[in-house]
């Protein structure tokens, strides 16, 4: 099938590969944090000391956040699929929904942490909890900003099937953010 060669050439896939390495470094940062968290928690449990105060960590907020982010994975897939098919309207709807779900997750987490009234310096557990969850909030906020930029590009007709690397890269980053939250959900909210 003959087609015209694009006049404004793009570099094939280098953006996605570079984003994969960047996302990998972010994941390893969280790997280090989780390693510290689980190690100190295991020591505390072995000595029989209390890790979190009774009732401080509740399952419902963590579960709601996990469900919110799980839905955002679907909307992100929708966005990638829409861009691949040059469906600008659906791409914009999907990106907006994904960003809104990310903002909802940030809102829920901030409300929860204001509500539990656990000072950041109350214990090692509290410090690590705020560090890990705070770092993840930053990750999600960066993802939302990235999606906002993509939305502007889509509005201007720049995210197309021929120039979709930025969308693929953002999707990869977003999936990584959700994967990190799944570890937070299991390791902190469920295991406590």
């Amino acid at each position, binding site marked *: 099938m003959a087609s015209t060669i694009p006049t*404004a*050439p793009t570099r094939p896939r280098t953006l996605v590969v570079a984003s994969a390495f960047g996302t990998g470094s972010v994941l390893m940062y969280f790997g280090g944090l989780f*390693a510290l968290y689980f190690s100190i928690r295991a020591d505390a449990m072995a000595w029989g000391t209390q890790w979190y105060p009774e009732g401080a960590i509740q399952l419902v907020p963590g579960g709601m956040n996990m469900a919110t982010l799980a839905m955002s994975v679907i909307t992100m897939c929708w966005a990638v699929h829409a861009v691949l098919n040059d469906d600008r309207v659906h791409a914009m709807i999907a990106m907006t929904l994904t960003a809104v779900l990310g903002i909802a997750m940030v809102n829920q987490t901030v409300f929860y942490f204001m509500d539990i009234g656990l000072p950041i310096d109350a214990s090692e557990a509290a410090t690590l909890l705020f560090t890990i969850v705070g770092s993840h909030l930053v990750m999600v906020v960066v993802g939302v900003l990235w999606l906002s930029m993509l939305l502007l590009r889509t509005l201007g007709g720049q995210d197309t099937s021929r120039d979709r690397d930025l969308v693929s890269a953002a999707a990869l980053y977003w999936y*990584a953010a959700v994967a990190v939250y799944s570890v937070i959900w299991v390791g902190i909210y469920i295991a406590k």
Partner: protein
Amino acid sequence: MLTTGFKLWFGFAVAVAFAAVFAGYTSGATETGPISIGWKGGVGNHVSYTILIFASGVLAMFGLIAVAFRDGDARAQAEVLGLDEAPAGQSDVGNSLWPVFGALGIGAIGVGLVVHAAIFVLGLVVVAAIGVEWTMTNWSEKVSGDPAANAEARENLMRPIEIPILGTVGVAVLVVAVSRVLLASSVNGAVVVATLVGMAIFGLAVLVSQRPQMPRNAVRSILFVGVVVVLAMGILAVASGEREFHQKGSSTDHGGVDVEADH
């Protein structure tokens, strides 16, 4: 088919996963803990096990990216796009200083968080400005296949915005830095400094205007050296502090005026 990149990264991932299991069982793991990621039994040393498991997952992700994007192969992309030939790669755009300035802005944000709010705000402003500049440079590099036309497109769009802003910032820096020098100098010294700085600026301006054939790089170099000298003098003056100001008349005389004294 499985690509070379996939085989490399996935091989690393499997090796690191085995290393995690090995590290677990040799550091006190129980039952099937290291195999089931702690589901049944302990995993041994949590630090080494968690880091190795995360590393294995990240390496596996690299492998999946490699196979999904066919190791970044342009021909595979052409196939997906339905083209006979692979799209040409972007032309060489040379080096860019925006990452360096962006890093300076981020560094200023970090330092400002610890030292002073003004430095933090300055860092935010620098990062925002670099973000705009970098975005526009990136846009201009894709306007066409001709680097000269791309640079012209960027200049046409950005120069009317950059020149007034940079001019305003330059005047502000000049005023603040020179005023610090005048405040740090003695009464007579301030007069001498003001005269010399004024004459130097006027002399250089006359020199440049008399030589219209002077290369642009030479004019830029003169301006750059001038800015560095003024900034350095201002910083040194701030470090040495202002001269003493004495109130004229007695200490109870509220109607007195400030006068400068040599010291």
